């Protein structure tokens, strides 16, 4: 299994990366305790994978995720909602049992 990025997600990410001149970077996905449903998703750019990181490629983008976060995010698809309301990235995580309205945190 893996984590991946939807087509719309990749489109938006590529736009941001171009804007920030960071097209050669990896997208880092991770998870941290806190938030309304227990855990928060987290996005960042990274120069290179570290120890304990897994790497994936999806829709032309390189993703790194640390092994611990991957345990809870396996199968997650990063999507982007480009509607006028609730615009932003969404994590569609098949492992999450509950998630909050904002879609950036979840519980299992």
């Amino acid at each position, binding site marked *: 299994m893996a984590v991946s990025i939807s087509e719309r997600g990749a489109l938006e990410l590529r736009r941001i990366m171009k804007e920030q001149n960071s097209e050669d970077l990896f997208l880092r996905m991770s998870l941290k305790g806190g938030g309304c449903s*227990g855990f928060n998703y987290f996005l960042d750019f990274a120069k290179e994978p570290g*120890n304990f990181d897994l790497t994936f490629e999806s829709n032309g983008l390189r993703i790194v995720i640390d092994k611990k976060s991957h*345990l809870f995010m396996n199968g997650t698809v990063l999507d982007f909602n480009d509607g006028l309301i609730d615009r932003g990235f969404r994590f569609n995580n098949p492992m999450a049992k509950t998630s909050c309205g904002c879609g950036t945190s979840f519980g299992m």
Partner: protein
Amino acid sequence: MSVIVGIDLGTTNSLVSICQDGVPVVLTDKEGNGMLPSVVTYTKDSVLVGNEAKKQFLEYPDRTIYSVKRLFGKSYSDIKNSSIGLPFQIGGDNSKLSIRAGDKELQPFEVSAQVLAKLKSIAEKALGKPVEKAVITVPAWFDDTQRNETRYAARLANLEVVRILNEPTAAALAYGLDTKQTGKIAVYDLGGGTFDVSILDLCDGVFQVLSTNGDTALGGDDMDQALVDWMIKKAGPDLILDAESRIAMKFAAEQIKIRLSDKDEVEVKLDFAAKNLNLQTVLGREEFETLINPLIQRTLTSCQRALRDSGLELSDITSVVLVGGATRVPAIRKAVKEFFGKSPFTGINPDEVVALGAAVQALVLAGGRRDVLLLDVIPLSLGIETLGGAVTKILLRNTTIPVSATEEFTTSVDNQTAITVHVLQGERELVEDCRSLSRFKVKDLPPMPAGLPRLQVSFTVDENGVLSVKAVETRSSQSASVEIFPSIGLSMEAVDKIVEESIDHAMDDFELRMLVELRNKAERIIVATDRVWQKAQSLMGKEEMTDLEKTLNETKAALKRGEKDKELMQNLVDRLGDLTRPLADKIFTSATEDVLVGKSVAEI
């Protein structure tokens, strides 16, 4: 391979250290003391060293020798006209100097040899094997004679000196600055009785001393003296000023100074009726800072001179390192930071930093490889303790530095007048599984209901890897902050182990974390329901109230027994949510009615 220890042979205190698994540590005696007072007492038939000797000071003032480092390389004619202020007898001529201790006549290095021998024995006991070689540190301004005298002392103590190392260089090594290959480093060393500032040039990983400056009669003791003078003024003219009252005040002064390092004000209470010394007042940190400001300014003048002599500009300085116990005083840190325009390194215990650096040098000389943490990313996540013993990470592992992040928190108890911020490092979810870095308080908050305070906590890691944590309660503008060097004492191996553990425990930690969150949620609902219980009686049906009460009691019991079944807690919280939702709706509606009833539409 033979063992090489690092030794900080200090004027006031000495330490011995070694690298264990690539990380330098100070070795301690069987009582756990790492600092050995550089004091030797020569009684009729024995020699006492360290704390044992210090205790003899009042009984044998003429046989108890200390501060001999100041006499290294000096002849009697060098010092006879200066007020070096040592109570034991010193004699000699233009070429040499001797100290009289009872019926013995000694040279300064012979006294230091006793201190070194004691350190050797502490190290041998701690390591369980013989120690024959050492790296010994000396002030950067020590000349050849003084360095040689240090060698003689070591030889007499049966220690082979593998290297004489400059103290500021040792401090820079302790912080791993040598790994940066190049740089210009200022080392500000304020000890008990002496102040040294050195400017170092680091080129291809090798340090060179560009300049030194300082004051051999300026240190933490002078801050204590400034406080004593203040006390004398406060005590009034009736005070009987003699050795006894001076000692009492000096002791109090040191305590006040230490307490003011993390308190904004301290109560000063001195009751010494026999000397008409009755003082009951409060000293604020600001007033203390005014008292010691002249001393701080003198150190800055030295810094200015050292910088001038080095031929560098302020902007050339790449790192600033603090050494010496007195640099714990916040006003000093602030002054140094302002002078050099840079946050100084403060993460390592300033009393130990030189000894630890000597151990690093010893390791390198022994052919060992030092584990150095790459400082371009955060090696382990940083966060704070939140309700229920959970850790909320603010900066995640692997984030590129410099970096800054802010999160907002609030209280869970009504009328809290202080909030403790507990800074933690690690990958696990619970406080007990992470490393505690620091604890500080935001104080003097006006009483507010739980949930109303807005505590903004910012974590900033600068290019040196120094973490500053600042917490501001934005409604009252009360704030507090702390600076830490989180990578100290961590080897790459240790970091890997911590991360591996967090992966191994990920599932359990996740469950525990969820459980903590559920418990917190349950507590919140209980408190909120209790608050509106009276009102609820009139708004809700009898049956609804009975159901609610039953579920509340069940939840309270579960919390009390520390229920560990996540599903069960989830079920209770869900049920409480379902039962209290209609109540919340009704309270909201009735509150709106209370405001609206009796008013015309125009008034609304």
